[in-house]
C-alpha cells in the first residue's frame, strides 16, 4: 500500500497515529486564521471559542465545505488537503459524518430515507438494514417513516446523528449540535452521545461555546479565539491551568489577580498580592520576582468563621460583602478585598451562612485553599 507523504514539519512535531486527524490552517486574506490541532482515533476534541472566533470555519474546512489559502489536513493515512503539494480531496470523497447546527435533514424524505441516502456502495436491502440499526442505536426505532417536520428538536438531532454515523465515516464533526434544543432534551442527548461514542474509533470534533458541555462530553479541548488556536490539552488541564490570562477569561474564570512570585516553599509558592498581603498557592517553577496572574478557583473559597481551622495550606483574606444573591440553595457572593481593590466571586451552599452576615457592606473574611490558586505567567499573556 502506498503511504501518504507527511510533510516534514508535521512529523517532527507530532507523531502520526493511525486514523488520527491532523489539521493546520492559515489564512491572511479575509478573517485571519492560524489553526493547528490534532485529534486521535476515539478521542472527542472540543473546539471551544466565543461566537465569531472561527470554530465553524475550521470545522467546515475539515469537512471540505470551505477552502483556505494555506492548509494541511490529514485523516489517518489519507491526505485531504495540502496546499503546498496542491492536493485537495472533495467533500464527497472525504466521507466524514457531520451533524449541523440546525439538523439539516432532507425535509421531503422520511427519517429512514434520510439515513439511507447517506450510505454508499451497498445494496438497497443492506442500506435499509444499516439505517434501521443506526436509528435503533439513536433511540429512533418506531419513527422511521415520519417526516422531519413531524419530529421534535431532539428527535431531529438523533436522526442527524444516525445519518452522520451510518456512512461509516472517517471522522465525526459536530457543529454546535445542541444549540437548538432545550435544556432538558440537551441533558438526555449528552448521555446518548456519550454512550454512542464509546464504540467509535474515529476522531470526533465537537464545536461549542459551552464550557459545561465540554466537561460532560469531551476528552480534550482546543481553545480558539479570533481565528487562532490558543491552547490544546485534556479538558481538566486546560480548565485548571490556562496558559494565559486571555484563555482564563475565555473559559469564564472571574477571579484573576495580578501578583508577583515572592518565595518558593516546599510544596507551596508564596505570591505577593498588592501591598503587604501575600497568598500561598500550589508550587510553580516560575522565577522569584516574576509578574503573574493568579487564578482563584471559586470552589477553593470558603467563608471564614472564627471557628474554622487555619491549616497550613490555606489563606485568609479580609474584605467586605459587595453583594450576595440567593440562587436556589446557593448564595452567589461578591466580596470586595481590602488588600487589592478588586472583587472575589464565589458560591456557597445556603445552609452554611446566615443571610444577615452577607448584607452589602458587612466585613467578612474568606479562606482560600492553596490548591485552588494557580499562577499564570504574565509573559505568556
Amino acid at each position: 500500500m502506498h503511504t501518504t507523504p507527511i510533510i516534514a514539519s508535521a512529523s517532527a512535531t507530532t507523531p502520526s497515529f493511525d486514523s488520527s486527524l491532523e489539521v493546520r490552517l492559515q489564512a491572511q486574506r479575509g478573517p485571519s486564521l492560524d489553526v493547528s490541532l490534532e485529534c486521535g482515533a476515539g478521542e472527542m476534541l472540543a473546539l471551544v471559542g466565543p461566537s465569531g472566533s472561527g470554530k465553524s470555519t475550521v470545522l467546515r474546512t475539515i469537512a471540505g465545505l470551505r477552502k483556505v489559502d494555506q492548509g494541511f489536513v490529514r485523516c489517518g493515512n489519507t491526505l485531504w488537503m495540502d496546499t503546498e503539494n496542491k492536493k485537495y480531496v472533495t467533500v464527497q470523497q472525504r466521507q466524514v459524518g457531520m451533524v449541523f447546527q440546525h439538523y439539516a435533514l432532507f425535509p421531503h424524505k422520511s427519517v429512514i430515507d434520510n439515513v439511507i441516502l447517506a450510505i454508499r456502495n451497498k445494496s438497497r436491502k443492506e442500506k435499509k438494514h444499516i439505517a434501521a440499526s443506526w436509528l435503533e442505536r439513536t433511540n429512533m426505532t418506531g419513527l422511521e417513516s415520519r417526516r422531519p417536520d413531524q419530529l421534535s428538536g431532539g428527535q431531529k438531532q438523533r436522526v442527524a446523528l444516525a445519518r452522520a454515523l451510518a456512512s461509516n465515516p472517517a471522522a465525526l464533526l459536530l457543529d454546535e449540535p445542541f444549540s437548538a434544543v432545550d435544556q432538558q432534551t440537551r441533558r438526555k442527548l449528552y448521555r446518548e452521545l456519550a454512550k454512542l461514542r464509546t464504540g467509535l474509533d474515529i476522531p470526533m470534533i465537537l464545536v461549542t461555546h459551552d464550557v459545561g458541555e465540554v466537561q460532560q462530553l469531551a476528552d480534550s479541548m482546543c481553545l480558539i479565539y479570533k481565528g487562532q488556536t490558543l491552547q490544546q490539552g485534556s479538558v481538566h488541564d486546560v480548565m485548571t491551568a490556562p496558559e494565559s490570562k486571555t484563555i482564563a477569561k475565555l473559559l469564564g474564570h472571574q477571579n484573576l489577580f495580578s501578583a508577583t512570585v515572592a518565595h518558593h516553599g516546599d510544596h507551596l509558592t508564596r505570591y505577593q498580592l498588592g501591598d503587604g498581603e501575600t497568598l500561598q498557592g500550589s508550587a510553580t517553577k516560575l522565577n522569584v520576582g516574576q509578574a503573574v496572574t493568579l487564578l482563584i478557583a471559586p470552589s477553593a473559597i470558603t467563608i471564614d468563621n472564627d471557628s474554622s481551622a487555619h491549616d497550613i495550606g490555606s489563606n485568609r483574606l479580609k474584605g467586605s460583602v459587595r453583594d450576595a444573591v440567593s440562587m436556589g440553595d446557593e448564595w452567589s457572593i461578591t466580596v470586595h478585598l481590602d488588600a487589592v481593590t478588586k472583587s472575589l466571586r464565589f458560591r456557597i451552599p445556603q445552609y452554611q451562612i446566615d443571610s444577615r452576615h452577607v448584607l452589602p457592606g458587612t466585613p467578612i473574611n474568606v479562606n482560600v485553599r492553596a490548591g485552588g490558586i494557580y499562577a499564570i505567567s504574565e509573559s505568556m499573556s
Partner: protein
Amino acid sequence: MSPFFVSFKLALWTTLILLPVGMLLGRWLAFAQFKGKAWVESLILLPLVLPPTVIGYYLLLVFSPDSFSGNLVTQWFGQPLVFTFPGLVIASIVVNLPFAVQPMQLAYGSLPQEVREAAWVSGLSSSKTWWHIELPQIWQGILGSATLIFSHTLGEFGVVLLVGGNIEGRTRTVSIAIYDHVQAFDMLSAGWYSAALLVFSLAALMVVRMSAQKSKRTH
C-alpha cells in the same frame, strides 16, 4: 387559424423555452456570490418595469432590416422578424424573463444552505444533490413559474401589438382580437374572448396560490 390557436401556440413556445432558462439563471443568482450581481438582477427585472410600448419600440429597432442587428437576425432566420410569429416568440421571451427567473431564484434561495451541504457530506455529487434534494423541494416553484409565464403570455397586449402587427391567423392573439372587436363595436365577440381569458386567468391564479401554499408547508 383562430386567435386562440395563435395565443396558445405563443404561450406554449414561450413557456417551454423560458422554463429551463429560468431554472438555470435563477439557481445561479440564488447561490452564486459575485461582483455586479445586483446589476444582473436589475437587468433581468427591467422588462417588469419598462412600459410595453417602450419594449416594443426597442424590439422593433433591433428587428428592423435596416439595422445591423436586424441584418444578422434576417440572415439567421431567413426572413425579417417584424410582424412574424418567431419575432413574437422572441418578444414574448424578453417580456417574460423576470417571471421565469424570479420565482426560481426565490425557490432556490429558500433552500437552506446546510441541507445542500449535508447532501454533499453524505457523498451526493452536485448533480445527484440537484436531482434528489433540490428538485423535489422546488417543483411547486416550477409549476407556479410555468403557470405565470403561460397566462401572462396569453394576455400580453402592448408588445405583441407593436412587434406582431396584428396579422390575422399569424400574429393576432386573443388579447389583440378583443381590442379589434371593441374598436369595431362588436362587443359580443369581445365579450366571449374576454370571458375565456378571464376564466383562464382565474384558474392560473388558483394554481399559483396553491403551489405557493404547498411549498410553504414542506419548508
